[in-house]
């Protein structure tokens, strides 16, 4: 095996383990003899789950007291590293909290970060990373030259999560050193945007709308179609920025990465930043009135047409079947 030890930062959504964390644990286990998880909050609640994906230990920095995870997790990891026996690599998800943790840790331990990683493999002198650049048209391979540990910030859906059959991970608490000003931000309240149906990044069918819908009201077409197909509605950044739909609908580089059985892009041009979030979908259908739209270069079925005509007809046809 290439490495002795990898630490994986396990992101939480409320008390739940983020699915990307299970993906990272799975990959880590293929690359290193020992995998340990690092999290915050109550770790005993997730010890079974992270254990079953290969972590032998789960270290928690404890209750954040309303603080953001970044400063506390980074400081606790840095403390452990300077106390001796650092791992060779630290895996962090390219998520909101993940980027905060990785950035702070990088500055604290004076090591660079490799971000937007989509794959890792054993290579000469350690791990070699893979990054999809220029909208996924080129693959760049990179590696750390600095001394270990390397900090790897990895995109969601890069690996399929697989259980290892391992037992519960051993729980312990890592002390957080005095944070001072860096830890001063406090979460005052949390707002969950209610959505019906399957989650965007887990749905087998995703129907996304873009600026080509013309106006916010037309997003209803996307919701109706998604519902008929038992899928989730998604969006390009253009219409999230315009305030038509909440940010949690965004697919792409800064939004969610999706890999459904079928992705239906409606009135979306296919900018590189959108494509990195959906181009691994098993099937892609695109409706766009511009024959030259880049989305057609990756679509299995492309329809050159007006979303306002095609979608109502499609919705009608599907309704008549059921």
């Amino acid at each position, binding site marked *: 095996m290439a490495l002795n030890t990898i630490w994986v930062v396990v992101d939480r*959504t409320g008390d739940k383990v983020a699915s990307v964390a299970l993906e990272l644990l799975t990959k880590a286990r293929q690359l290193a003899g020992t995998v340990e998880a690092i999290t915050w909050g109550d770790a005993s609640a997730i010890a079974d789950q992270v254990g079953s994906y290969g972590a032998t230990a789960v270290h928690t920095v404890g209750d954040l007291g309303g603080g953001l995870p*970044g400063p506390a997790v980074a400081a606790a990891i840095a403390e452990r590293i300077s106390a001796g026996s650092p791992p060779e690599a630290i895996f962090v998800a390219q998520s909101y909290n993940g980027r905060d943790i990785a*950035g*702070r840790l990088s*500055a604290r331990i004076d090591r660079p970060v490799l971000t937007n990683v989509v794959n890792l493999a054993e290579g000469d002198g350690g791990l070699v990373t893979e990054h999809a650049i220029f909208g996924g048209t080129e693959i760049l391979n990179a590696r750390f*030259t600095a001394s270990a540990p390397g900090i790897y910030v990895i995109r969601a859906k890069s690996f399929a999560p697989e259980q290892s059959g391992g037992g519960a991970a051993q729980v312990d608490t890592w002390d957080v050193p005095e944070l001072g000003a860096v830890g001063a931000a406090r979460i005052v309240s949390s707002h969950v945007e209610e959505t019906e149906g399957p989650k965007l990044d887990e749905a087998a069918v995703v129907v996304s709308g873009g600026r080509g819908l013309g106006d916010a009201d037309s997003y209803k077409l996307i919701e109706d179609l998604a519902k008929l197909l038992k899928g989730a509605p998604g969006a390009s*950044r253009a219409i999230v*920025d315009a305030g038509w739909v909440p940010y949690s609908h965004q697919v792409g580089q800064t939004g969610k990465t999706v890999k459904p059985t079928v992705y239906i892009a409606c009135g979306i041009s296919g900018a590189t930043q959108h494509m990195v979030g959906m181009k691994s979908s098993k099937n892609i259908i695109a409706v766009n009135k511009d024959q030259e739209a880049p989305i057609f270069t990756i679509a299995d079925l492309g*329809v050159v047409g007006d979303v306002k005509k095609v979608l109502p*007809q499609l919705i009608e046809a599907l309704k008549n079947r059921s």
Partner: protein
Amino acid sequence: MNVVVCVKQIPDPAGTYTLDPSNHNLVRDGKLILDDSDSYGVEMGLQLAEQAGGGEVTLVSMAPNSETSGLRTALAMGAARAILVSDPALAGSDALSTAKVLAAAIKRAEPDLIIAATESTDGYTGTTPVQVAELLGLPAVTFSKKVTVSGDKVVVERQTEEGYDQVEVPLPAVVTVTAGVVEPRYPSFKGIMAAKGKPVEELSVSDLGLDASAVGAAGAGQEVVSVAPAEARKAGEVVVDEGDAFQQIVAYLEKIKVI
């Protein structure tokens, strides 16, 4: 309230990006422009300074070849002055080196609030601003979709997987904003003329008291091993809608057993 806005000057994304075959660095030789992602930060900085009833917006940028085109755009929007760090020693900098440079430059402006974008268009590591915050010993709130200042604290709506959190942070602090937080103003003709006379202080690595071997390609702790074309996803069938294309979609969905 004094605000620093980090602005990156980048090759025009509308053009083609290429990598230098000798070192795999992004070619940044031509004219650079203000990263669109940072125009939101500039607008946010201007609005917050106005609301606070005074104070200036100072731009901080690290760019090759003494580039100021992007800075002039942001100055034309209304920023008061700029600090530009340009030095051949900085070529090939990774995010951490960039953060070290930006942090050292930002310190000189003694800001109450530092704004950056959540991620740049050409680099998109999304880590530089947090690294800056850590180096400066400051709190940070990333992914802000709404920012207000009340007294000596900032209140932010920060995006989360499922919605958003309301987060409060005392000043001084680093805040990163997403596109769409505010509508960036277009520089007026007057603004463009005024920008020409606004001060741009240019600094080198040694002016900042940094060691040239700790930044740029020399200080980068990572290297590109290779770059190769990705396996292309093949385009499938493209049909022009004659009023019945929806049937083809239905047939396709049947074929893949989604319905």
